[in-house]
């Protein structure tokens, strides 16, 4: 038993605390997980869930006056200003959001982990420089920075992911810095050092595995934040560019018409809130289960 804990502390931490069993007892968390799978299903099975093409501008998709069709009839959620089926665009838009949630958030998590762990473990001038850099990033008006960056690079899906990662890595870095710094002072790390273990070995074998729960929690919550950022950038027209459907740019394209056709704002908006809520619920439950400082609270 002691040996198995030694070989893989991350798995051990998760097994020991009965994370899955605890998670299964939380109704809200399970509801969040259900919403996650719902969105995932929409993204993967989009071509089979709808008979329309997301970019097809249909002649019968507009009324005789040229206005978008309201929900109901052949177009379940109505059509947009160009006569495209809204449901189809929302289903395909789930792909955009999830790609951002995985790519942007993954990259942010990676940068944040590298910076946070390096600064927390080595301290000294390397640590100070890195942490002053995070102070600097915290002082930036996040959205203005993202808009400027998006304007410098011509925005494509991957560029938007990169921009979001550049803006968002700081949070993770700060949390992991604090945790690494306190871990690095613990006796078992000092013992390893006395035994002559290299920095790489200590970092990979002893520090990083203990950070896994925190990384999981921040990784999950970060999906919500990055999805919201993408939606906001796309809403302003500097994020994912049409015709690629994204929930934010659907609202951007149809905004001028929203008084007459509120469904063009309501349904994509609902999709954004659903996905962000889903990952927030799951992430929050994971934090309560995995974070030892949260124990005994509710």
């Amino acid at each position: 038993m002691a040996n198995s804990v030694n070989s893989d502390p991350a798995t051990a931490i998760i097994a020991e605390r009965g994370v899955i069993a605890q998670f299964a007892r939380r109704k809200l968390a399970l509801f969040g997980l259900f919403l996650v799978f719902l969105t995932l299903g929409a993204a993967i099975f989009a071509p089979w869930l709808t008979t329309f093409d997301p970019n097809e501008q249909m002649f019968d998709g507009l009324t005789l006056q040229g206005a978008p069709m309201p929900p109901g009839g052949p177009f379940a959620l109505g059509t947009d200003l160009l006569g495209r089926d809204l449901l189809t665009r929302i289903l395909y838009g789930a792909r955009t959001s999830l790609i951002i949630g995985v790519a942007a958030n993954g990259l942010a998590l990676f940068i944040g982990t590298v910076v946070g762990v390096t600064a927390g473990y080595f301290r000294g001038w390397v640590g100070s420089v890195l942490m002053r850099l995070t102070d600097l990033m915290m002082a930036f008006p996040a959205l203005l920075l993202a808009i400027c960056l998006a304007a410098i690079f011509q925005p494509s899906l991957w560029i938007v992911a990169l921009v979001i990662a550049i803006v968002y890595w700081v949070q993770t870095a700060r949390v992991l810095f604090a945790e690494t710094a306190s871990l690095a002072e613990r006796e078992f790390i000092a013992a390893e050092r006395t035994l002559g273990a290299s920095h790489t070995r200590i970092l990979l074998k002893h520090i990083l595995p203990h950070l896994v729960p925190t990384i999981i929690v921040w990784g999950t919550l970060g999906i919500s934040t990055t999805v919201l950022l993408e939606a906001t950038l796309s809403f302003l027209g500097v994020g994912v560019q049409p015709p690629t459907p994204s929930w934010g740019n659907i609202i951007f394209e149809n905004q001028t018409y929203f008084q007459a056709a509120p469904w063009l704002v309501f349904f994509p908006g609902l999709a954004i809130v659903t996905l962000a809520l889903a990952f927030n619920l799951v992430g929050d439950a994971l934090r309560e289960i995995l974070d030892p400082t949260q124990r005994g609270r509710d």
Partner: protein
Amino acid sequence: MAGFFLRRLAQSLLILLGVSMITFVLLYWLPADPVRQIAGRSATPQTVENIRQQLGLDQPLWVQYWRYLGGLVQGDLGRSYLQKTEVSTLIASRLPASLLLMAGAIFAELLIGLSMGIIAALRRGTVTDQSLMIVSFIGVSAPQFVVGLLLLYVFAVQLGWFPIGGYGTFAHLVLPSMTLGILGSGWYSRMMRSSMIEVLRQDYIRTARAKGLNRMRIIFRHALPNAILPIIAMIGIDIGIFMGGIVVVESVFGWPGIGQLAWQAIQRVDIPIIMGVTLVSATAIVIGNLLADFISMIVDPRIRTR
């Protein structure tokens, strides 16, 4: 404490210097040429070159930055390329609107967030508590523009209670403040709830109860003032969050603040304005964080000794 204050102040100035440097470099790299924007489509290459020289944009990056910094020290943010006005004048004319919105937003956030948090804490574990916490979750999961547009649709377009965007009267302030209030209250209500639960657990509350004090008096006189202390520091952080997202809410509601100024400037590549608004926002964020630190030190003497 004075030493701590000075050190933090110096740090903040360095941070702002860093922000100005990074923003300057980023804007220098913008692919759009501001001189072409100023000169217009029909300008000859000679005119374009003349304007470039006039503005000093033909100089190397570090020379331009040094010159900018020189102005900055004297409170000069440069001149707008297109509006032919001092950037500081433009920002000064827009700042009151943004500050008014900030006050409205923080008021709405506190009103909604604190009452939700207090009720949830007092009804802890009940259906009321759970529903309130679900609402607060939805609050932190919704983007500003969705909530803003929905509020506009329901209360301005359908019910006609408030104007559809714009600025001037109290009625104009309600919907944008509510948008930010609904979203921001999510954090406040969760913090207020846990802080209140923590305080209600303390011995002095039990003593008060044992003395047979009236329940309302215990809650409002003994528990609330203590539970609210950690929340006050949060307001400082909130100023930063507000400044970070101001572009969206101002563009949804057509609110003539610095967010809208920046947004228009970005579309027209009016670099001095973008630069100025970024610096003003960053300053507000830094001041907000400083305030948060000092307020926590003042209200909680335990932090002072650290």
